[in-house]
């Protein structure tokens, strides 16, 4: 009987220990049962952090570009040489880029997965090329527009000079040298206008892949324009001397 009681107690004791051991195992090694859940939570947190990081980076890239474009807008509007039409045209191009970047910003902010956010962030550069193409392009257009305005103003001056030369000629004075200098100035202006028109077309054709090549050609065109302006300046200098001489000889 006592043996039976001992066996019974041993069995009861033995079974009573089983849950305790499991419980101890759980306490000693909690990851054993909850690890998959924790791992998945951590992974989701990491994904969230990476997504936030991409969005933050995209926001910075876009805001820097918009700030530069706003500066460009201000520069266009403050330019006294540009006509209203030119200002409107250039401003609308810049504004279109700002609007497109703002749209892209909203799109990236709404992205819910890393790969889409990353692809859209790449578009800030590859779809716009603000610093590599767009801003230099507008800067070159402004430069050419300014030089065209200078050319127009000089054309007005040469008309006035022609009137003066005609008046002096009517007075019986020799205007051969003055006329020759003025003809050269007009010829230079004509060449300037053609070169600037061509240069403008080259600027309009600039894209991300041909910038360096196009820019080299445009720079060459503008150097030729500068050279022509220098010749006009030289003509004007000689005309001034001639006019001073005529003025002294006038009783």
């Amino acid at each position, binding site marked *: 009987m006592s043996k039976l009681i001992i066996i019974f107690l041993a069995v009861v004791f033995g079974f009573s220990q089983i849950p305790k051991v499991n419980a101890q195992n759980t306490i000693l090694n909690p990851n054993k049962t909850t690890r998959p859940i924790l791992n998945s939570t951590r992974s989701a947190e990491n994904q969230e952090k990476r997504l936030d990081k991409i969005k933050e*980076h995209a926001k910075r890239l876009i805001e820097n570009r918009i700030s530069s474009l706003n500066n460009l807008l201000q520069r266009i509007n403050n330019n006294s040489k540009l006509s209203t039409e030119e200002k409107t045209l250039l401003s609308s191009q810049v504004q279109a880029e700002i609007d497109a970047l703002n749209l892209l910003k909203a799109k990236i902010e709404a992205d819910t997965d890393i790969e889409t956010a990353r692809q859209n962030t*790449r578009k800030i550069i590859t779809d716009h090329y603000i*610093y590599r193409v767009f801003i230099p392009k507008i800067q*070159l257009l402004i*430069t050419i527009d300014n030089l065209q305005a200078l050319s127009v103003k000089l054309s*007005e001056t040469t008309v006035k000079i022609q009137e003066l030369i005609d008046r002096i000629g009517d007075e019986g004075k020799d205007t051969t040298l003055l006329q020759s200098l003025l003809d050269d100035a007009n010829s230079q202006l004509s060449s300037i206008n053609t070169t600037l028109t061509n240069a403008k077309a080259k600027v309009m054709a600039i894209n991300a892949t041909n910038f360096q090549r196009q820019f080299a050609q445009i720079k060459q065109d503008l150097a030729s324009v500068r050279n022509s302006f220098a010749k006009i300046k030289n003509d004007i*200098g000689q005309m001034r001397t001639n006019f001073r001489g005529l003025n002294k000889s006038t009783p």
Partner: protein
Amino acid sequence: MSKANLILLGAIITVLIASSAYLLLSKTNNTNLSGQNGGDNQNQIQTITTDNADESLSQTETEMTTELNQADVDIKEAQDTNTTSSTQEDLNSINSL
């Protein structure tokens, strides 16, 4: 004169004074505007005579120098904006995120 006529006369005088004031103010504004335009026109070329040719053409030369120097600055700026743009670096930084 009846009271009604007096009121009518008063109204007419008021309208006349108001109209005169309006015309006077408009004229003042026009004068100011034409004054401003006149200011702009001062930069435009007046008739060139043998007396003012030297001075007038000297101004033209100065203006040309200023504009051409500005063009040089602008061209350099356009080139710098292009060359300092770190397109590849920016793309790499995006890929590494």
